[in-house]
């Protein structure tokens, strides 16, 4: 009797393992579409402004035993297709590092980047057409483009930053007599989605483009979770005006920020002002949208399969922005009343 129970238990365990394995590998008979959009800053040294481009990659993996045939198109608002000023680029030139990948590409043997077939206009839209594509079993393709998205200034609304409903409110005060600088930032997630891998950093130049020190920092106070580096004049970064200058960087990084949650970065500096100068802090804002959907995308891919297929869809939206402050911190030495 005991022996029979053991056999039944073992059989049950075996069944559970097989069932779990089957479930974990259920994607292996489907087509997996992973789309990634990354919004990035491109610096224009002529106009000293940041513009935003969007890198879009569509990765299609054929996990089936048979080939699949499909067509891919992306639609861009016509006013965003500005060839003379901003590049649209396709194929390998539009691939971001690290390359897009899917958790479900275990059985895929090779992935190739496909060239664009044609670009045409239709009413108020530009169509990026990748044509009819045949994907062999266990193969994948990437259709990619990079296109203008907006001017960097479009994220500034009434003096504060609004990046896809991630609002960054700021306040800066300079006390000339006490030589103190105070910078306060409040970051609030006003979107309906949780964001992840959030990073907000503020770079404050401590020297000008000639390498001359603007100010010496005597004391630093920050909010508890803030981190900083560069007070030793060893770190250089772009000052937002095309120069690589020494400065200090303050930052906060959070794993997640839920809808309606807020966090803050508070910086208080006791300084010695050495040179009258207008400092333009620059900001880096990075985050991913969790559970992003096609609706979160600038230009989701439209795919059309010639036969009925089992399709799984994953999308990823990331922001990686470098934005320049447009209200300068006016450093004035005591002897300079200008």
């Amino acid at each position, binding site marked *: 009797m005991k022996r029979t129970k053991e056999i039944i238990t073992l059989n049950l365990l075996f069944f559970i393992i097989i069932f779990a394995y089957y479930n974990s590998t259920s994607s292996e008979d489907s087509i997996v579409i992973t789309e990634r959009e*990354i919004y*990035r*800053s*491109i*610096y*224009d*040294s002529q106009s000293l402004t*940041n513009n935003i481009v969007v*890198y879009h990659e569509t990765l299609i993996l054929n996990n089936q035993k048979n080939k699949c045939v499909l067509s891919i198109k992306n639609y861009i608002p016509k006013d965003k297709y500005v060839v003379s000023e901003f590049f649209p680029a396709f194929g*390998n*030139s539009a*691939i*971001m*590092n*690290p*390359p897009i990948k899917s958790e479900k590409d275990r059985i895929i043997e090779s992935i190739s980047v496909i060239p664009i077939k044609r670009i045409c206009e239709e009413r108020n839209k530009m169509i990026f057409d990748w044509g009819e594509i045949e994907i062999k079993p266990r193969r994948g393709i990437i259709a990619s483009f*990079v296109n203008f998205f907006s001017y960097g200034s479009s994220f500034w609304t009434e003096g504060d930053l609004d990046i896809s409903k991630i609002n960054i409110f700021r306040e800066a005060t300079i006390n000339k007599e006490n030589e103190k600088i105070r910078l306060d930032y409040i970051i609030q997630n006003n979107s309906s989605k949780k964001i992840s891998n959030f990073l907000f950093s503020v770079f404050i130049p401590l020297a000008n483009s000639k390498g001359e020190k603007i100010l010496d920092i005597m004391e630093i106070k920050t909010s508890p979770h803030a*981190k900083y*580096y560069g007070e*030793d*004049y*060893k*770190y*250089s*970064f*772009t000052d*937002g005006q*095309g*120069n*690589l200058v020494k400065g200090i960087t303050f930052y906060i990084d959070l794993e997640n920020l839920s809808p309606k949650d807020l966090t803050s970065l508070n910086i208080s500096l006791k300084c010695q002002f050495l040179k009258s100068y207008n400092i333009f802090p*620059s900001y*880096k804002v*990075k985050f991913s949208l969790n559970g992003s959907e096609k609706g979160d995308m600038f230009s989701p891919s439209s795919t059309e399969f010639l036969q009925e297929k089992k399709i799984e869809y994953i999308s990823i939206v990331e922001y*990686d922005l*470098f934005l320049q402050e447009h209200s300068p911190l006016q450093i004035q030495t005591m002897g300079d009343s200008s």
Partner: protein
Amino acid sequence: MKAIIVSARKICASLAILVLLSTAPYLYGISEPTHKESFEPLYIPGPVALATSPTDQGDAISVTQRIMNYWFSSGIKSYSLTRSSSTKSNVLQYLNEEFTPPDDELIYWNNIGHGDKYGLYFYDGKMYYYEFENKSGITNSIIFINSCYSFENPLKNSMVSNHPDVYIGATTALPQYTSENACGNFWKYYIKDGMSPSQALEQAMEDYGLEGYFGLYEEN
């Protein structure tokens, strides 16, 4: 009589083999030194530069070659570890300055490859940030890591804890082609044109519209 002839033939054959064996080294250019003084190979200890590129994506390999040419032309012993030779253990030999003979010093290291703020990907796997600590090869060297997020902590802190003269890393994810070429231009401006590291980086970033993509640490 027959036995004597066979023996004579054997002796002749043995002598022929001996003659052949003794002349073979001369025939093949392998000769003993003419006198017995000790012979040391010509070796000048000096600076070494290392270019690593575990990936062949984008312009990684061609730019690595371009950087090697700048180093070679300035008379620096330059080595490259690309693709499958760019393993963790091979790279570590240079970073630990395990040279034979041991009096060489690593002064430049350029890496083009994938990475994140926790480490760099070499051919056989990821080298984590803590594996870059206590590396004598990084000390007093100029290092350019053209890998995503290589200027973010904890990787940056591990690198600069070795007190390199200059450490350049990416503050962001990098686009292919432009980032590799900006990296190549940095070495051109620094080695060939004699710019300072910060001037060279500023110019290289401007060439490809990548201002803000790289940060620079400089030991005072």
